[in-house]
């Protein structure tokens, strides 16, 4: 099972909102995954298969090895679905 980590600045606002969206979208796609949310600092040291967050935040996680999905409109379900489909 893949682990998806949703990341935001403080780890208690938008990351939670995105986590709900990710859960809903993956459920619609019929995929089960481990989903969690955290702040940027913790996200840098936590291992996951896919990192998701607002584009300007997750840009900090790009290291050439991680799989990172940056969202422009974090409340747009169709953007999220299109981007997730590439990895599942």
């Amino acid at each position, binding site marked *: 099972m893949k682990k998806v980590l949703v990341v935001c600045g403080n780890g*208690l606002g938008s990351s*939670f909102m995105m986590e709900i969206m990710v859960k809903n979208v993956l459920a619609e796609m019929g995929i089960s995954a481990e989903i969690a949310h955290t702040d940027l600092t913790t996200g840098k040291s936590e291992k996951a298969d896919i990192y998701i967050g607002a584009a*300007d935040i997750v840009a900090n996680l790009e290291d050439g090895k991680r799989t990172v999905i940056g969202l422009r409109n974090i409340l747009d379900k169709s953007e999220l679905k299109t981007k997730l489909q590439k990895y599942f």
Partner: protein
Amino acid sequence: MSVLTVEKARVGAFANDWREAIRIVGNLLVEAGDVKQTYVDAMINAVEKFGPYIVLSPGLALAHARPQDGALKVGLSAALLKNPIDFGHPDNDPVKLVLAFSAIDQISHLHVLQIISQVFSDPTSAERIYNSKTSKELVTQLGFL
């Protein structure tokens, strides 16, 4: 008592820039006794530190800081701006509505965020919110009345 009341919602608020806009919603939380003044400064500092990622979707900014920055209870305030303002977000500017929330732990504010993400993930309901004419209408459209 609801986390967002009519007293904590403003329609037609005027701000010169994003810092002022955050101060307006922040002060609504201070007046309601939800946060200390330090929390308002921390919300501004968070944008300076992490960038305008609090602009979640077109027209919407959700300002917040951490519980330890001076939050006293779970609270939410809203300011619908007279003049939309740029926060420097590449896709979702200009901001029409600024919300501020205070969290006291990792969990107790989550129902508030759930309501917000639900109403703003539907562009039609977002548009209805942005067109609110009174504080009462704004609170109602946001789903708190």
